[in-house]
Every structure is written in structure tokens, then in C-alpha cells.
């Protein structure tokens, strides 16, 4: 379980906290949503969990262990990240995007890495994309490839930053279905401002406003509250 304790974050040179005193437990058995409007601190929180930012105050723990004490070389085998911009490597094929980290970071032999990448692609119904380059596939396909690439390290948690920002409504809906099928093996933490999408995929979540956690709990309740306040 990921737990966030008294976490505050202030960007260097800034006078105000981007995040203020966040306390939350992210249960491993659900798709968990971090909701909020633009600028509410959602991505900052994701970056603190993924160790791209170090909290100014407070800490993040995974199964009781402070995340800052976990070896940097292995942290992303525990917590995978898929960025809003996806950041697929444009010079490598989908297959090479997927096998780069297993071969070089985990030391898995190339053949074996290719075999498991192919299995992963087949499981995610995108095996036909293996030899394409990222710029040759659609936004929805790229989204799946980015998740598949992160899943190759078999992380226990997977952070997705605004996964639907570049998708149209039909693709978003397909993606939500696809994601629901995956949640049995990996715990997804989704940062999004897209409430209908969150409603479709997540069971629990938190709502951030101006760096402060406004509500926490069942996703339906959060959405009802937000709708009522508007």
C-alpha cells in the first residue's frame, strides 16, 4: 500500500505550496483516481510519488518503507509511470521501446525480453504494432504502448498522468474498458481531470484543489459532491 504522510511541496523560488499537508492511503486493490482541476497539484503529487520530486515536508511510503530510502535503481520496478505526453522513444520501434528497459535495466537476455514483450502486446491486443515506430501509430495505440512499456518492468503500482488528454470520447471509452481488464494484476493510480472517465475506471479517489485535499473516498461520492458544489 502507498501511504502519503503530511506531504507538502514547494517549487524552488515559489512562495506558496503546490501541495499542502496531504495525507492519504492508496489501497492496492483498486484503480485509484487523483482528481482536480488544472493547477490543483495533481501532477506534482504524482511526481512526488514517483520520486521525480522530493517532498519539502512529509514522506511517501510503500508497504511501510519510506520511498526516499528505496534504491533509485529499483524504485521504478515498484512504481511505473506513464506520462501525459507518453514520451515513447521516437527512434525505436514499439518492440524496441518495450525491450530497452528489460534488457538494459534488468539484464534480461534480448530473446527472452522480446518474447515477453510479444506476449504483453498480444495480451493487450496490439501485437500488430510491434515493428511500427511511435509516429506511425494513433494516439490511442500510443497510449496502450506506453502502458505496455511500463508494464514490462512488472511494477506493483502504475501511475498514469492524464491518460485521456489526447484521446477522443470513443477511444477514451475503449481505453477505460481495456484498463479495467488490466487492474487485476497491477494497481493503477490515475491522475485526471476527466471525471466521467474516472467514474468509469476508478472505485476510490481524492479530489485536490489549490494543493489541498478536499475530499477522499468513493469516486461516486466525490463526483456527486463536485457536481453539487458547482
Amino acid at each position, binding site marked *: 500500500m502507498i501511504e502519503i504522510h503530511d506531504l507538502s511541496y514547494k517549487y524552488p523560488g515559489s512562495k506558496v505550496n503546490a501541495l499542502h499537508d496531504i495525507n492519504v492511503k492508496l489501497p492496492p486493490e483498486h484503480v485509484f483516481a487523483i482528481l482536480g482541476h488544472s493547477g490543483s497539484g495533481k501532477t506534482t503529487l504524482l511526481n512526488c510519488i514517483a520520486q521525480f520530486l522530493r517532498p519539502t515536508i512529509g514522506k511517501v511510503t510503500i508497504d511501510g518503507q519510506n520511498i526516499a530510502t528505496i534504491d533509485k535503481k529499483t*524504485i521504478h520496478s515498484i512504481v511505473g509511470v506513464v506520462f501525459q505526453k507518453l514520451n515513447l522513444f*521516437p527512434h525505436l520501434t514499439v518492440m524496441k521501446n518495450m525491450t*530497452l*528497459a528489460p534488457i*538494459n535495466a534488468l539484464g534480461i537476455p534480448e530473446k527472452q525480453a522480446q518474447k515477453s514483450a510479444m506476449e504483453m502486446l498480444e495480451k493487450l491486443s496490439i501485437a500488430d504494432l510491434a515493428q511500427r515506430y511511435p509516429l506511425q501509430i494513433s494516439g490511442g495505440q500510443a497510449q496502450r504502448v506506453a502502458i505496455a512499456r511500463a508494464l514490462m*518492468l512488472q511494477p506493483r503500482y502504475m501511475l498514469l498522468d492524464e491518460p485521456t488528454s489526447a484521446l477522443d470520447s470513443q477511444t477514451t471509452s475503449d481505453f477505460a474498458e481495456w484498463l479495467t481488464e488490466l487492474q487485476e494484476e497491477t494497481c493503477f493510480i490515475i491522475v485526471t481531470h476527466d471525471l466521467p472517465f474516472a467514474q468509469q475506471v476508478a472505485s476510490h479517489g481524492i479530489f485536490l484543489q489549490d494543493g489541498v485535499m478536499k475530499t477522499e473516498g468513493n469516486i461516486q461520492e466525490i463526483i456527486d459532491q463536485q457536481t453539487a458544489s458547482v
Partner: protein
Amino acid sequence: MFIMCYKKWTIYFLFFLSLTTSFTEKIYAQDRQPSMRVALTGKYPPFSYYDKDGELAGFDVDISREIGKYLNRDVEIIAAEWDGILAGLLANKYDAIIGSMAITPERAKAVNFSLPYYQSGAQLFVHRDNPSKIYGINECNDKKIAAVLGETYQRYLDEKYPNIDVVTLKSSVEIFELLEAKRIQGFVSDRLVGSWQIKSADRPFVPVGPMLYAEDIAIPVRKQDKKLLEQINNALMQMRSDGTMQKIHDKYFGLSSKTADIGSQMSQSVIIKKLAKGFIVTLSIAFASLLIGFVLAIPCGLILNQSTGKWKLLYWPVRTIIDFLRGTPVLIQLLFAWMGLGLSPYVAAIGTLGINSMAYMAEVIRSGLMSVDPGQTRAGRALNLSKVQIFRFVVWPQAFRVAIPSIMNSIVALTKDTALVAVISVAEVIREAQAIISVTFEPSKYYFIVAVMFFVITFPLMKMAGVLEKKIRQKGFVQ
């Protein structure tokens, strides 16, 4: 794929480096032989020129060889540019100049002159048709009269006849061509040189007016080489008394002289051999410089991309060096490396062109690195890759692809820049062409051939740069 290409190219580069190194060492080893090193231009017939076999020959060459015999030393003859010939002597590039140098008070301040080995004088020559009706130096006001840059005639004309439009050129051969084409009205040169052109090369020139002044031609050596000066003087005196000097003089200027093989054409095979040899030198210098430049450009480009962070201490020194190299003429850098640092011509050429191309390529690599989205590095980190792995597999391949077209352009520029190293007496293709022109008198033909030789190399490179740029755009690396 990229790694394979990378390895392949590394092997090619190493192969060329080994070729160039062995080639350079061979020449360098010859430079180091304990012989008397004598400089002349090789472009001043009949005193020095290239004969039909492509070897240096002429009055000054014969004098040098004879002096060597009297001194019991081997003579190594080095062809140098006239305008830098004294500086080369002072920089210890050779031991003496036996290149028809006149004694002047200014020169005598810097070097010691031997006894004169011949007397000659300045003479005005005009075209046989004499379209400007010039019959003496006093009728040359506002006329284009040529002299070789750095020769005493240039100074003389500038000082005594300020109203003459003095045109300065690098060698006599160029001046003869210009007068033959009537693009200048006349030239002032050594009377023997001009007369020889009329007699042996059948040039349409005539001397006009009396000799402007007489001058003593002697051999300069460095001030500190007193013993060498004494030996040369002794040799000259012996050569005069035993008739050797007269024999050499008669060979070139005697009434009955057949002038040996002067004026006869170089054979086609010698010309081809000379051009090919020169071109190999040109390409070897280009390849070696490119290798040095590229290898150095990668760390420099990386540092230039890090104006903040832990590398920032290195940033400003590297930035300054690169700005300096890009902001100063390559020619000055070459001359500085050769004369200022005292490097051998080949080391100076490869070193200067190498670090110069480094400066340009480092900028290209820096902009390539800057074009890679920082998100790519974060994605690498999110995938547990180490910093080195992120650079090697993610950032560098993208930066390099973006940089390739500009790197190709740098390669083209570098290849063309090798033409400059002729100035520091490297026997590359331009210098070989000049040597050929000094006996064939066909500058347009041979300069055109050399231009074509360069073009054959640079054109595919330019085309390749265009094709690669198109491919990269198609793949979406650059917008």
C-alpha cells in the same frame, strides 16, 4: 541498427586514421633527417620550378645541391610560400633559404645573409603588343603593374611610385598569366626571370626602360647559425673559384645553353601522379581532422548543453575556446600552429583543422541535444535506465539524427578548408597543382581539375545531407 552503424563508422574512422598517421609519420620522418633543410618556392622559374618528372629543379636547386656537396651534408629542399618564407626560417622550419632572396636592410635585421651568389635587378616588363604604350616606369601612373607579395619589387614600387596601381599576387606564374591575358599592363620582376619567360616559355613580353635597380641575391640563415653561415660562404667562394658557379649560370642563362629540360612539358603520367598524390594528402588530412573533430565535439557539445549544474565550471572555458575558434580565421590558426607553436606542417594542418571542425560540430551537437525533449530523459528514468544508458540509447541517437545534416555540412566545409593548408607548405592537391601550373602554364585547366576533384567528394556528401534531412523530417524528429 544505430549501434551497428556506429561501430561500422568507428572502424572506418580508425582505418583512415591509421592510414593517415602512417602517411604523416613517413613525411615527418623525412623532415627529421639530419640534412640541411633549404627552402624555396618552386614557383620561380628558372630559379626554382618543377621539372617534367615533377621534381624540384632550377638554378637555386642546383646551387643548393652544390653547397650540400661542399658541406658534405644531404640537402632537403622544402617548397614554401614566398610571403611566409622568412618567418618559416625564423621558426626553424628549415636552415637556409636558397630562393633568390635579395639583401635588404630590413631583412638583414632579422637574418644574416651570405655573400651574394648572383647579381640581378628589377626590370619592368610589358606585353609585346603594348596596348598602353608604356616605355618606362614613369609612364605607369594609374596602370596596373604586378609584383609578387613580399618581394622587394613590391616595396620598391609602393615607395617610389605611389601613383602606380600595384597588384600583388602570390607567385610569378600567376603574374605571367595575367599579363599574357592583358589583364594587367605590366610587371616588375627580376630581369633574369622575365627574360627567361620570353626565351624559354615563349611569353609575349618585352622588357622596357633601363633596369630599375640592381640587387645582390644571397642566402639568409638565422642570426645564431654563425657556423652554418661561414660554411655556406666558404662553399660559395670555392664554387666561384673552381668554376662551378659559372657552370650552373651557363646552364640556365648562357648563350649556348640548351637549358637542360627547362620548359619541356611534364608528362601526363607525372601530372596525374602528382595530382593523385596531392589529393590523397588532402583527403587524409580531411579524414584525420574530421575524426579528431568529431571525437572532441561530443564531450564539448555535451558541456555546451550544460550551462548550469555540475558541469558549469567547464562550460565557460569550453564556450570561450569554441567562440574563439569560430570567430578567428582558420588561416591565422594554421599559421599560428605552424610558426607560433613550431609544429610540423602535417601536425599543424590536422590539429588546426581538427579542432576547428570540433568547434563547429560541437555547436551542431549541442543544438541536437537541445532538440531532444526533456520528457525523453524522464521516460528513461521511469524505466529504471541509468544516466549513461539514457544518454546512449535515448538522447544521443535522437540528437545525432537531428545533427547529421549539419554535421555533413561541416564535413563539406572541412574538406574545402584543407585547401588552406597549402599555405603552410603541405604538399596537398592545390600545392601540387600550382607546381604543375608553374611548368605547364595552364592555370585555368588545372585549377578547374582540382575544383572538380573537390566537387566529386563534396557533392555526394551534400546530396546525402539533403536525403538524410528529408528522412529525419519524415520520421518526425524535427518539425
